Every structure is written in structure tokens, then in C-alpha cells.
């Protein structure tokens, strides 16, 4: 536990914000993740923020757009960018962008129809581009998702990471809970969501619903953040207090009820998330084995 005297500003947390208010001034000096409305804002904003306000990622969302039609700026360079796009589009057009994308620090998450999104993510990953699909509580979790999980964890062919599975795998240590919500930047150890009034929450949904912390980004200290994060990180316990049906699922540790909805059958999410759990454990074991020192003859 932090001591009350510890009032130094925390520099390990990133503030997730929308670029709809003067964040350059009001969040100056903080580590940021910025949601932008226009891809053209990325380079301009990055130049304006400079090194004093480090940005961990710029996030651009276009629910209907494709990678095919997106203006990819070759000067993005190393700027970390996450693109949420509906689909890949015509591959013969995208193919010309592949080499450029490989030289950039871009992750592409597909949000369109699930089977299409899985295929698109697999194509990009196979070309060495960090990609993924957006899972939501309403995701049908079709066999395409299982195929994508299989490709990400078991395929012998080299490929880039596929989200949210790779991030979940990186965070899962066997004795902690993870969930697809990690992709929504729900991780109290790393992210705080902040709005124009400088109000804070550990999830975007909480922020939008006004379910905010009792301190702002202006007076946040390590102590305040740690204490609030500790309370937030115990939210899973409420599922057990109520003996929620999801707590009886073998995959709860990699889901935390992410797919729960009233009246919805849990049969499919149990099946898919159980396979994901096995795949993540396979990956962990593989990494552990690879960490062994090679025999020196």
C-alpha cells in the first residue's frame, strides 16, 4: 500500500482520451492514448505534443471504412497507431500498401462481419502486420474465431500477432484474470480514461456513464490511483458474491463474464473461450520452453 505522503505524479499510467478538447495543453506531460476522428490528425497532433507528452497509441475508428480506402501516411513512421476498420477491402489494392504498412507501427483491428473480419485479420497477420478482430459481448463467436485462434497460437508459419488473443496471452500468468476487454484498454494498472472535464474512470463505459473516480486527472496521485485501481480490480468478486452462472464456467479466467447477456446461452462462449484458454496455455508453455538456455557444445 502506498503511503499518504506519496504524492508524486504517476508516470506509469496512460490517459485514454478523445481528441476533442485541447489535450495538448490540458494533459501536457502525461502519457496518452488518443482517440482521433481523422487519420490526418495523427501526424499533426504527434508533432504538436512532441516528446514531452508521450503518446502510446493513436486510435482511429471507422465503422464502415476499409483498409483499401484508408489514406495511409508513409510519414507515420514509428508513431504507434491502431486502426479499427470494418474490413480489408479489395486485396489487389491493399497489396500495394502492404510493404508500406510493414514499415509503420500500425495495428489493424477489423470490426465488420465476424467471418470476414477473421479472414482479413489472418491475411494481414500472415503478411507480418499486427492485426486483430474486435470482439463484443454480442459476437456470435463463429468457427471463424476458432480458426483464427488456432492460426494465431498453433500455426507453424511465421505471422504477426492477432488481437485480442495475443494481448490476452501476454497478460495471462496462470494466476490472474484476463478478458477481451483488455483491447478496450480496461486495465487499471495501465490505463485511466479521461474526459474533457478531466474526470477519470477505468473503463470508457464507466466514463461515458458518469461512473467516475472521486478525483480528476489534475489531482491524481500514485496513492489515489493505486487505491482506486485496487478497488476496481476486485470487481470480479461481485460475480462470486452473486454466484453468477459465469463463475461456473471453465473459461471465466479468460473472460470475466465478457460475453454475458441476460437470456443468452453461454454454451458457445464457453466452448470458444475454453479453446482460447487452452491455446493461451499452449503458448505460455512454448515460451517457457524457449526461454531455456541452449546447450553449449
Amino acid at each position, binding site marked *: 500500500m502506498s503511503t499518504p505522503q506519496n504524492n508524486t505524479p504517476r508516470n506509469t499510467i496512460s490517459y485514454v482520451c478523445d481528441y476533442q478538447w485541447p489535450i495538448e495543453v490540458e494533459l501536457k506531460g502525461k502519457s496518452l492514448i488518443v482517440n482521433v476522428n481523422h487519420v490526418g490528425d495523427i501526424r499533426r497532433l504527434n508533432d504538436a505534443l512532441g516528446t514531452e507528452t508521450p503518446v502510446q497509441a493513436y486510435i482511429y475508428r471507422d465503422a464502415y471504412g476499409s483498409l483499401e480506402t484508408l489514406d495511409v501516411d508513409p510519414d507515420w513512421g514509428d508513431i504507434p497507431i491502431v486502426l479499427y476498420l470494418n474490413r480489408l477491402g479489395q486485396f489487389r489494392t491493399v497489396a500495394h500498401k502492404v510493404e508500406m504498412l510493414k514499415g509503420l507501427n500500425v495495428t489493424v483491428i477489423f470490426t465488420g462481419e465476424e467471418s470476414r473480419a477473421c479472414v482479413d485479420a489472418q491475411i494481414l497477420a500472415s503478411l507480418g502486420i499486427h492485426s486483430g478482430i474486435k470482439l463484443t459481448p454480442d459476437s456470435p463467436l463463429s468457427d471463424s474465431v476458432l480458426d483464427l485462434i488456432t492460426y494465431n497460437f498453433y500455426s507453424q508459419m511465421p505471422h504477426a500477432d492477432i488481437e485480442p488473443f495475443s494481448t490476452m496471452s501476454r497478460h495471462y500468468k496462470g*494466476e*490472474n484474470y484476463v478478458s477481451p476487454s483488455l483491447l478496450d484498454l480496461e486495465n487499471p494498472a495501465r490505463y485511466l480514461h479521461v474526459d474533457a472535464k478531466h474526470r477519470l474512470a477505468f473503463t470508457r463505459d464507466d466514463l461515458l456513464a458518469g461512473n467516475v473516480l472521486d478525483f480528476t486527472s489534475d489531482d491524481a496521485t500514485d496513492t489515489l490511483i493505486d487505491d482506486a485501481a485496487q478497488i476496481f480490480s476486485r470487481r470480479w*468478486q461481485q460475480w*462470486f*458474491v452473486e454466484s453468477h452462472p459465469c463463475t*461456473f*464456467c471453465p473459461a471465466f479466467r479468460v473472460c470475466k463474464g465478457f460475453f454475458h447477456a441476460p437470456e443468452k446461452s453461454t454454451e458457445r462462449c464457453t466452448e470458444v473461450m475454453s479453446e482460447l484458454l487452452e491455446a493461451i496455455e499452449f503458448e505460455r508453455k512454448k515460451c517457457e520452453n524457449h526461454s531455456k538456455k541452449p546447450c553449449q557444445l
Partner: protein
Amino acid sequence: MPTIIFKATEACNANCVYCDVVHRKKPRTISPELLRTAFERFNEYLLEHPEEEMQIIWHGGEPCMAGLKLYQTALEYLNTICAATRDRFKFAVQSNLTMINQDFIDTFKAMGIDSIGTSYEPIHGVRGIGKKRDSVLYNKKFFDGINLLEANNMGWGFIYVVTRQVLDRPLEIFHHLTNLKLSGGFDLHPVLVYDDAADESMESGITQEEFADWLGAVFKEWWPNRERYPHVDPFATYLKFYTGKGDGLGCCDAPTCGLHLYLGPDGETAQCGRAADWDILMYGNIASKPLSEIFADEQRALIDNRKNVLPDTDCKGCEYWSICHGGCPLDAYNGHKDFNRRSDQCLSKKLFLKKYFEPITGLKLPKPQAQSHE
């Protein structure tokens, strides 16, 4: 090492559907005078036996129902009356955690306790607070306790009691428990319902065959995933024994009960908690008898001699003798009114090992190196 189950109070704030003691007894709590006497007796014994250590397990009821003052006083007696022997005490506590607070934790830690044994029940209505058996309130308080323990870097493990209420859902229960404690760290037990129990308790009872099959259903899931949740008993313990890595049996399976002793709130001592429940193997009051005399009680021979009798009677030729030893003698007495009988619980162990553990693992119990009665 003498192990004293110190039931300083019988009072409990929880109400469990299967709990026999709640129905049977008016709760009593030890007096300050008797607490002092107990520590004088502990010290006296350790001074007489300089090679020995002593484990004291605070038990109940719910130990916290005795009040913080009792444990603070115990700590004071430990530091004063037992100043010369203090280092040879090992304390433990079994609590439902729903009443624990920072003061209790500070006191327990000062006794050297760094982990607390508890129990847990996911099915609402089986365990709860008060007459209404409020399970939501119980669980909420339980998690408050867990959070406090973890904030104090204290460990915890729990037992789960299998009742008729969960007989048809072994995997759901197992997954719930492993979701609660992700790498395991719990022990699965059958509910113990005595012949004279209240109706409600009787309805929770399960047969030996039912428990074996319940364990078997869980084991089928545990075995291929044992790296995910390694610390689930009795599976982990059986596996150790079958692979020659066994490091001790629980009191119910050991060849003898050793220097195990129940100490109740009125100072009465007995072989163990079960013995005290049934008023058998009572060894006298600590106020009038030193521990050495209590541990030397002739009745203990009834238990100790069992390991010589059973291999030629009830357990003759049993391939599981080395892992069971006829089971708990008190259970045997409960079923047959004779300590020199095997416990009825043997059946569930045998069934589980033969029907599930051995075929699934492909393991066979190592043969004892020499024929002996251990």
C-alpha cells in the same frame, strides 16, 4: 509434534445447512482464567519436553466470535507465561473470514500465523449469515476478509464440503472453485452427517459411492488440466503417493492420530473435535490435568493399536492400506461403535482410486518395501 485443536469458542456467526454442531449445542466460550491455565499447561509440557514443538490451531465455531480480546490475551500469555518456550509454538487458525479485521490479523501475525484456512460455498442457501442464511451477505464479508488477508500478504486455502445439493453438478462446482482460486489451493471433502443430526443436515448427506463418483467426475477434468490448477486435493496428494513423492497423510488417513488433541471452551480435552462431539475418548479437563498426563491417557492405546489389528481383520489384503490405514478411527466408531473397524469412508477412497484415479492416470500404488503395519 502435539497438535491442539483449540476450540476457544463454539459460537459461530454462520449458518450452514449441514452443520451438526450448530443444531446440537449451546455455544460456549473459554473464560479468561481457563485461557491462562491452558497456556500454563502448554508451557509446562514444552518445558518437560525440550525437544518438542507444539501446534495450536484456533478453531470453532468461528474463532473471531470469541472476540479480539481473547487472542490479544493469548498473545500476552504466549509472551509472558510461555516466554521460555515461545519459539516452539506454531499457530494456525481456521476461520470463515467473515468477521476478520485488521486487529485480528495483527494479532494472528504476531503469533506467527501467515496463512488462514477457510471454507467456501457457492450455492446460495447452503451457507449464510443468520437465521435467514443470507449467502450474499456471507460471500460479501468473505471477500472482504480475503482482500484484507491479501493486503497483509497472508495466504489462504479452503476446503469445500460436498453435499447432496451439488451432487449433480461436480464440474460446475469445480470450475467455480478454480475460478475463485485460480491455481487451486483447496481440498474436497464429503459432508459428514452423524446419525443423530438434525433433519436438515441429514438431507445434505451423501453416500460413499456418490462422493467417489463426484470426485471421479471432477478428476476427469483435473487430470488433463492439472498444470492449470495443481493444488487441488485429494488429487494432488494421491498423485504424490502414487509417484512415490508422498510427504505425509492427513489425520484421517495416517496410521495413528499421533499427539492430536481437542481442547474445548470449558477446558475439556478429547482425542479430537469429532470425539468431543460424541463425548468419547475424553481425556479430562486441562484445569486439573497436565498435558503430559492427558497425552498419556490409556484410551489412546485404543487408537494406536488399530494399526496392528486392522491389517488382519477389516483391512486384510487391502491394497490401499498404505494410503488409508483404515481411515479415521472416530468415523469407524461412528459407524460400528468399535475403533478397531475400518471407517466407512474407506469405501469412497477405494472406489475413487480403483474406478477413476488408476484407470485415468495409468498409475498403480507402489507396493510397500517391507510388509509392516507401519
